[in-house]
């Protein structure tokens, strides 16, 4: 019997049993003898100085062990550079408890450590703090005059600046047959993974720590801790097998990690620090952004002038940037373009990548402007996209490594029933509800990064695969097991993928839809090396059937090395291990993307989203009743988990379009809805029919696997498709997100 390849199979998550039985343990759920509980005290003002920090009442409670603040913080991590992590933007990273300065509302200013959680929480309310407050600014809108170009730094490599202007935008726009322009705004958003940020630091003695951290990068947290506290890298082990959602929020080490480690080292005891839900709003966020567009087209609908400008928020201490304005010209090949991106410094914490950072922000203006242009031209919105279809990335004058967006448009439209759309706004009804159909294009980059992977064929004939990578719920464990199984021709049951541990071979942070391509490529490289070693051993066996053959003559399948031309000529892996004196055979490889080859191409995933909304004419209530997203994302390793990624992205799109936003009282500089009752994300009753299509896309350039990643592409096209559907239903073009019912009354 020949083994069916695992890649392409809709395999259920391998950790499913642990997750449905409660056996899966998350960062704040580990216990150690004598463990202490930390509770963070946060600033209640936005800017100024702490003038009094009185811990007497808190310390008087029996069971309170210590209250840390800037007054008694251990003298570690004196230099800003020690706090720079793998995802740090240019600037000077935040240093918890560094001094008496308050630079944003909710800033952590103390840590109460006590014998129980309840006691630490209570004692935190007894800490008395007084401040000398200073003038601050948190609203981007009155501060656009201070917008400036972002600083360049390491992080800029993954976030290229806007492309250079092309042609003469203004002249072309002025002469355009049809013009559309808009001003757009979206408010701050917070990631709000359901798991609260937590770190459990197990104090091992001898300068050694074992840390269970909520992170998207075990190595990132390891380096951060070792650098700040002056510990040896090998003495800091960060473990994160289960991560209860992150969506970008755990790309950078958050302050509970610093607090937990600081307290453990000072008190020489194990310490867990778990944030509460309101504290989940006191670090990174998607930045509020103002955007403007001006698109012009000729009478045939050909877009000849594109202008997209964005002003994003950043903190006073780091220049957080996003790729917001680069996308329009990657999709539509206009001859005249002008793209601009600037930042406004405000008294907030540094923004942080949040699912499809920049893409989710930029695609809404781009695709609603295209929709408006279609109406001005009296051309069907889908047809306008087809008129402006390009096989090349005009912004960089290079071809795509692959681009099956056309199939996304066609298959998505077919499945959705786009041809049943009456283009006239307010023309379609369902009872007393106005019905609208909207569509939009999506695009996201297909990147990969360097990583290391180790493969060991054990004496039991199992394949052990090791990587420090996390699985934040995306399905990494399952998908990497599938990749490894096929590489050696083994059933998945014979593959053990060990991950989520900084002791394992290096993996970068998990995000940006690059994990499958990055870790998958490393596994492929390690597998190539392991196959060579196995074959060398097999070919040297005295009475082996493969004696004297070449590597090109054989295949690795069914747990053995077989002659291509005659499967009955083979050596089993077990025989090879026996020949190796029953010792395991190992391969460790570092894989680096082929930059020279890749730079000749643009690499991206594409999507087309089609959405039906119903709007109650009297009440303005909006429901997304139906949505189809067709995705071209290269090779899909696991259609089941990949579909879930796209579904999740679609729900995020619905949320961004009509539900979620962080509301700031700019008089206080404070977020006012720091809880899940008032920070609205969709509930089950808000989510209706969602459909996903993966169109076939072959790509032998992007990486050895042909994968492009599916974490963000499900999100980006949904907000504009929904906004366009709302316009079609109501005749109202609302350019700020989220769109509320009162906007439609």
């Amino acid at each position: 019997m020949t083994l069916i390849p695992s890649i392409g199979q809709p395999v259920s998550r391998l950790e499913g049993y642990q997750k449905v039985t409660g056996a899966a343990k998350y960062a704040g759920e580990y216990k150690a003898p004598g463990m202490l509980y930390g509770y963070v005290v946060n600033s209640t003002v936005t800017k100024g100085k702490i003038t009094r920090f009185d811990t007497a009442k808190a310390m008087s409670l029996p069971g309170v062990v210590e209250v840390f603040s800037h007054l008694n913080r251990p003298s570690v991590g004196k230099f800003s550079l020690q706090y720079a992590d793998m995802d740090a933007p240019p600037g000077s990273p935040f240093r918890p408890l560094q001094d008496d300065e308050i630079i944003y509302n909710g800033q952590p200013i103390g840590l109460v450590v006590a014998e129980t959680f309840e006691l630490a929480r209570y004692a935190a309310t007894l800490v008395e703090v007084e401040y000398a407050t200073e003038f601050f600014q948190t609203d981007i809108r009155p501060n656009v005059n201070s917008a400036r170009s972002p600083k360049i730094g390491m992080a800029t490599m993954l976030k290229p600046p806007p492309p250079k202007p092309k042609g003469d935008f203004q002249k072309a726009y002025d002469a355009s047959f049809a013009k559309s322009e808009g001003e757009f705004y979206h408010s701050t958003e917070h990631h709000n993974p359901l798991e609260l940020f937590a770190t459990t630091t197990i104090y091992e003695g001898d300068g050694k720590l074992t840390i269970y951290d909520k992170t998207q990068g075990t190595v990132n947290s390891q380096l951060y801790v070792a650098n700040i506290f002056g510990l040896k890298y090998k003495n800091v082990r960060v473990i994160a097998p289960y991560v209860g959602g992150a969506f970008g929020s755990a790309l950078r080490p958050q302050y509970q990690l610093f607090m937990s480690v600081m307290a453990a080292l000072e008190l020489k005891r194990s310490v867990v620090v778990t944030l509460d839900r309101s504290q989940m709003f006191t670090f990174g966020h998607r930045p509020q952004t103002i955007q403007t567009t001006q698109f012009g087209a000729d009478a045939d609908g050909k877009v000849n002038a594109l202008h997209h400008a964005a002003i994003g928020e950043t903190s006073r201490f780091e220049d957080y940037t996003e790729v917001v304005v680069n996308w329009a010209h990657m999709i539509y090949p206009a001859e005249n373009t002008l793209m601009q991106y600037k930042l406004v410094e405000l008294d907030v914490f540094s923004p942080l990548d949040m699912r499809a950072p920049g893409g989710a922000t930029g695609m809404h203006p781009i695709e609603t402007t295209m929709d408006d242009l279609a109406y001005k031209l009296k051309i069907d919105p889908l047809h306008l996209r087809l008129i402006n279809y390009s096989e090349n990335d005009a912004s960089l004058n290079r071809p795509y490594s692959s681009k099956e967006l056309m199939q996304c448009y066609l298959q998505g439209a077919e499945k959705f029933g786009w041809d049943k759309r009456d283009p006239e706004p307010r023309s379609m009804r369902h009872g007393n509800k106005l019905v609208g159909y909207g569509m939009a294009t999506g695009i996201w980059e297909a990147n990969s990064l360097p990583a290391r992977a180790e493969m060991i064929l054990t004496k039991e004939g199992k394949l052990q695969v090791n990587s420090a990578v996390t699985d934040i719920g995306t399905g990494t464990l399952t998908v990497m097991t599938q990749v490894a199984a096929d590489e050696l021709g083994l059933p998945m049951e014979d593959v053990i993928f060990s991950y989520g541990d900084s002791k394992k071979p290096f993996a970068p942070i998990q995000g940006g839809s690059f994990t499958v391509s990055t870790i998958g490529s490393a596994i492929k490289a390690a597998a190539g090396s392991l196959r060579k070693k196995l074959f060398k051993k097999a070919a040297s066996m005295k009475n082996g059937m493969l004696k004297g053959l070449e590597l090109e003559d054989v295949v690795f399948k069914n747990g053995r090395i077989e002659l291509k031309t005659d499967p009955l000529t083979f050596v089993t892996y077990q025989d090879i291990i026996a020949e190796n004196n029953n010792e395991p055979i190992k391969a460790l490889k570092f894989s680096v993307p082929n930059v020279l080859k890749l730079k000749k191409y643009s690499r991206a995933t594409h999507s087309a989203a089609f959405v039906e909304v119903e709007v109650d004419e009297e009440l303005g209530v909006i429901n997304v009743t139906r949505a189809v997203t067709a995705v071209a994302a290269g090779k899909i390793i696991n259609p089941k988990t990949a579909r879930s990624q796209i579904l999740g992205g679609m729900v995020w799109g619905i949320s961004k379009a009509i539900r979620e936003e962080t509301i700031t009282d700019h008089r206080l500089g404070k977020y006012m809805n720091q809880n899940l009752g008032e920070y609205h994300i969709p509930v089950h009753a808000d989510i209706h029919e969602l459909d996903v299509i993966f169109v076939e896309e072959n790509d032998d350039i992007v990486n050895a696997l042909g994968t492009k990643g599916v974490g963000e592409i499900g999100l980006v096209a949904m907000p504009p498709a929904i906004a366009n559907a709302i316009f079609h239903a109501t005749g109202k073009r609302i350019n700020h997100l989220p769109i509320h019912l009162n906007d439609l009354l």
Partner: protein
Amino acid sequence: MNTNFPDIPASPKTTFSARPVTLRINGNPVELNVLPWVSLLDALREYAGLTGTKKGCDHGQCGACTVLCDGERILSCLTLAVMKEGSEITTIEGVAQDGELHPLQKAFIEHDAFQCGYCTPGQICSAIGLLREGKAETRDEVKELMSGNLCRCGANTNIIDAIMDVKNLSAHE
């Protein structure tokens, strides 16, 4: 696990003391020594060592802490442990019987009804309570009556598919 707690001076005149509380958790009597301010959620997670029940908000807004109390779904974060003396508490750890997964647990795996898995114990316990209540008949009613359980990964449609599968299966039995 913590067993010795300091008394807490609530005010100059009163002091809270830890007191023993006996809960029946997943069929077994468990005696916990807790202060009156300990929520059922924290009693389970921090004192009984059962971390399967999750804390997502501690405010009754997310549903991650849902457990079954005498067969009914409740939010353990809005319940004090001392209020449940003698009650039968079923947590996610007690849903499978003799190593055999509950039909909902199997359906959640089959339908990929979770990603990060953090809301999953609450979703499953809530769904067990929902099916037992017998109020929800249609898919829309199931969605409505499951809406106290948030899922940030966006597995909503798969979660409802899994519940409908089990609901239809038990209706046909």
